[in-house]
């Protein structure tokens, strides 16, 4: 992926990033600082040479940078941004997982929120057993304890 094409009010300086599978990306500072990590690097003046990101692969990094670019665009309206986000996060699970991990690693609060919200929506209708299976969690309640907990929170089951 090469540098952004839309003009931005920025110093015009670019950051070079290198994914864990050695793909390099050039990105405008104004876009990169959506990530708190890059924000500090830019502020501290540490940006010589490509910044290695051993926890993010090229495909994911490309997507993340696309999102950052969109969100750094001063001309876009809130409605357009919401529509964009809805489409952006509608991806298959493996991609969603990678985006979640990358947003966390790169400390991009808004993207992390978007991804978490999506996962929450996927699990909110699940039974406790389904949730345990999904996340490989051991049920450490005795059957009596589990029944107690269920009764205590019975209102949440609905009609």
């Amino acid at each position, binding site marked *: 992926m090469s540098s952004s094409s839309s003009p931005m009010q920025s110093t015009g300086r670019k950051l070079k990033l290198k994914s864990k599978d050695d793909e390099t990306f050039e990105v405008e500072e104004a876009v990169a600082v959506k990530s708190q990590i890059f924000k500090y690097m830019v502020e501290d003046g540490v940006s010589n040479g490509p910044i290695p990101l051993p926890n993010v692969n090229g495909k994911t990094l490309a997507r993340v940078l696309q999102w950052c670019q969109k969100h750094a665009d001063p001309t876009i309206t809130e*409605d357009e941004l919401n529509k964009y986000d809805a489409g952006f996060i509608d991806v298959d*699970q*493996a991609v969603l*997982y990678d985006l*979640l*991990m990358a947003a*966390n690693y790169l400390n991009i609060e808004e993207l*992390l*929120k978007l991804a*978490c*919200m999506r*996962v*929450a929506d*996927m*699990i*909110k*209708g*699940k*039974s*406790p057993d*389904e*949730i*345990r*299976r*999904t*996340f*490989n*969690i*051991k*049920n*450490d*309640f005795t059957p009596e304890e*589990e029944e107690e*907990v*269920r009764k205590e*929170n019975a*209102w*949440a*089951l*609905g*009609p």
Partner: protein
Amino acid sequence: MQETFHHPASMTLPSSYTFATTMSGSNGTTSNTMTTPWMDRRIWSKLPQRLLDRVLSFLPPPAFFRARSVCKRWYALLFSDSFLELYLRVSPHHHWFLFFKHKSTLKSYIYRDCGGGDQGTDNRRPCEGYLFDPNDIAWYRISFALVPSGFSPASSSGGLVCWISDEAGPKSIILCNPILGSVIQLPLTLKPRLFPSLGLTVSPTSMDVTVAGDDMISPYAVKNLTAESFHIDVGGFYSIWGTTSSLPRLCSHESGRMVYVDGKFYCMNYNPFSVLAHDVAANIWSNIQAPMRRFLRSPSLIESRGNLLLVSAVEKSKLNVPKSLRLWELQSFGTTWVEVERMPQQLYIQFAELEGGKGFECVGHGDFIVITIRGSDKALLLDICGKKWQWIPPCPYSQGVGGGNNNVRDCRELHGFAYEPRLANPVTGLLDQLTSLSFQPYNG
């Protein structure tokens, strides 16, 4: 996008609305079951615990409480400081609603009860509330058994529901988080009042309560003279009803609820219609003219995405303008009302037929508005963002309780608030400190 109208006489209705007629009865299939997407455990079992906790912070409260059955650690999250700290930082607002099956709290209704000696038989303090999720169109029943009798629900903010004592005199106020089962009482107000209006706003760091009007100038006479305010915040500032203000002359707000927007409490003033505003920080009341004030019927105020909206039926008999239900937004620093939405005419015809002049109430926050029709269990939901109107399926919990007396009508009628379910209310910690210092006898 949405046009704003200053002269709506020739407006064209937004064509992108949809409305659905009432769903055919809940026949065993609950509106709460959803098909959930299959999740690949090979992927998700690798999710680190801290990120999974963060995901849990985004769950709407019923799902969170169901998830407490998963394992002991998840059960205990509700009491975990580190989880709650994360929750307070990242959790989204759930703009839901809370309704009560209740004798109306309007003044006229209460007077009827007081006068007729109905008190004994009709002492139906609602022990339960009905939680409504406008995203998934789902109902839940939550208990208010911890609230003592002699109190009525008055307002809600930041996950807390506020109850006020019915008895004339200085007022006792109780704040309750129904999903946590927590109850805390505020110190008594100072002036004796009958049925004052109450405004509440709660944030993670502060709380403001304003109690206004119905000053008892003698044991049998009330007048709208003053308001008193309560404030507490993490900065250490507090005012235990010591902040008082005078109401504008000749105002009449009929024990209305007050809506908080951007530093002010607002409530409807009647005859003629206007909007009373209380600037909390400056402690000053002012009066704002209402739009089309001579032609309004059943006006309500609501908060919507940070703005104040006035919702009302409009009846204009002189000109050849069809009756309608309109929504105006207060703009330009509280000086101009701009019409932002109008009920589609076809839907209005249905609505008017059901409502038949009995009146209706509106509550709302975020993107959602609910209109409940008096004397009926019918309610409309408006998603103001998507411009979608729909009839809400009746609450499955409030059906069938009757008794063949005059009160059957009340039983189905829902009266409620915009309510945001929250797992934690940090400001109640401040209240704990406060009430442990002041020795107020419980006014039970």
